[in-house]
């Protein structure tokens, strides 16, 4: 009786569609979060607990042995360090060169400008997967195989970043730049002191994208890192998982480590990421 009155009083009609929608969305949520939560819980379990039947959802205690063990008994600290160096280095490079390139394409009139912009857009169609071999040869020619620079440079010139920043800069008034020129500011000074401070929002989006991409990158680091000292975290996890040398409880702990930074970024910057994608329709 009471429940029926509740629904009739509520402003919104709750029909069968609304109920089905909740059911579907809750099932999808469980399908997505279930494996992730299970992984997190399992990363605290001992090898014996992991093998126990039936599987226990919760670890007996919150022990961090898998995390410390992986770092101490295997060079996961090195892989983590490599991932951080590559992610930070590539993101800094990406943001600097993408912003400069976008400014050049957005605010100057010069011969070939449109052609160069179209060329940048066209490279979205040529992903690394397809040109893997010649890019690798290029790196070999520069002696950059198995180096940090080799890991960092080729993926840094993201066409998506140039596109996103250029579109934003087109909306900035030209008068600002002209006024600064009249005041005798140098071309680079105008860029650094006037344009960059106004581009906080798109630069933030490019930064977030770049961090996520480079942190998760796999195929390129797999190809370019020949010695295991240069492995990034995803490469190390993939290699060790197939070789069965590293106990799986360590792999689980390191999987959590690889997912954690991205999840934290997501929790704090979810809105920026979502609007960024909605604005460009690009990943």
């Amino acid at each position, binding site marked *: 009786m009471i429940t029926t009155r509740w629904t009739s009083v509520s402003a919104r009609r709750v029909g069968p569609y609304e109920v089905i929608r909740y059911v579907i969305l809750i099932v999808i949520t469980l399908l997505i979060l279930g494996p992730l939560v299970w992984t997190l819980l399992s990363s605290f379990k001992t090898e014996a607990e992991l093998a126990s039947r039936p*599987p226990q959802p919760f670890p007996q205690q919150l022990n961090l042995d898998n995390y410390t063990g992986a770092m101490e008994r295997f060079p996961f600290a090195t892989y983590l360090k490599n991932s951080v160096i590559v992610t930070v280095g590539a993101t800094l490079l990406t943001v600097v060169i993408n912003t400069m390139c976008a400014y050049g394409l957005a605010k100057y009139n010069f011969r070939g400008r449109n052609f160069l912009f179209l060329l940048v857009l066209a490279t979205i*169609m040529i992903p690394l997967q397809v040109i893997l071999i010649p890019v*690798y040869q290029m790196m070999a020619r520069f002696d950059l195989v198995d180096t940090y620079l080799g890991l960092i440079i080729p993926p840094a010139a993201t066409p998506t970043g140039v596109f996103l920043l250029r579109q934003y800069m087109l909306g900035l008034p030209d008068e600002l730049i002209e006024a600064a020129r009249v005041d005798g500011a140098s071309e680079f000074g105008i860029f650094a002191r006037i344009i960059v401070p106004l581009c906080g929002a798109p630069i933030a989006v490019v930064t977030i994208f770049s961090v996520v991409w480079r942190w*998760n990158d796999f195929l390129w680091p797999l190809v370019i890192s020949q010695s295991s000292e240069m492995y990034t975290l995803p490469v190390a996890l993939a290699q060790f998982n197939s070789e069965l040398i590293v106990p799986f409880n360590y792999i689980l702990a390191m999987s959590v480590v690889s997912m954690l930074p991205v999840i934290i970024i997501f929790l704090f910057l979810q809105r920026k990421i979502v609007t960024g994608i909605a604005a460009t329709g690009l*990943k």
Partner: protein
Amino acid sequence: MSADTVSARARPRARPLITGKMIAPYLFILPNMLIFGLFTIYPAFSMFRISWYDSKDGRRFRPVGMENYVEIFSSAEFFSVAFNTVLFTVAFVLLTVVGSTALAVMLNDKFRGRGFFRAVIFLPTLLSAVVVGLLWGWILERTNGLLNVALDAIGLGQPGWLTDGNLTRWVIVAVGLWIHSGFYALIMLSGLQGIDPSVYEAAQIDGAGRWRTFTQITWPLLRPTALVVIILSMISGFQAFDFIWTLTGGGPVGATTLMVQFIYQKAFESPVRYGLASAGAVVLFIVVFAFTVLSFLNGRRQEAA
């Protein structure tokens, strides 16, 4: 060119010929364009060239003409890989379009928990695909995996998710959807939000139901966005590699080996076949390019009609 230079020299110098404003744009775009040129544009061309050569070590190259292409198109392995790739991509694109549209429609109007559900479906896109593949491989393991332990407990047996090729082909589609549908749903959602709410008023007055409103009004207006989703998901389908690598390794018995893995293994695992791998990459590039242009043209034609 030389005539230009001569006339420029002949002109009296009222102002300096080259000002900062003239060189500045080139300096601004130089670093980015240099990397593009060296690591994207030049390699895109040299990929075609390498496909006419054979090399066992990446240093000495022997010109072989069309041989790599002849070899590729007469090898059973290539056809099996091509079949796997097309099957995966078709299933992935179709289910992505249906799934992301359904998700976007469900997540468009206001209701309690909408923000939470939007965040959750988008989360997998940000995770490392390698790690996701690894974790699903662990959950789907034949005897000790969480899923089969659960299925076994309720008497449903232990399906060979990763050992029965016909099943594994669908497992990689499912995991691909798990990773990517949230991203495509978000694109569809931005398309839905671009639709003027007033167009729905007429349908409401006519008393059209949800399904009719969707087929008659929403879907036709959503088509351009769906085209973006089709093209993007197709490109990502043809290039699927990382999560499959850790989930199945391409197995069982090559049932889930797709094009990029084929190219990677021919180029970087012994016996090294650079030329053959490049021929494969050229074929992949042409197929992706052709499909993209075709769906684009098809989308334009439908819009015009």
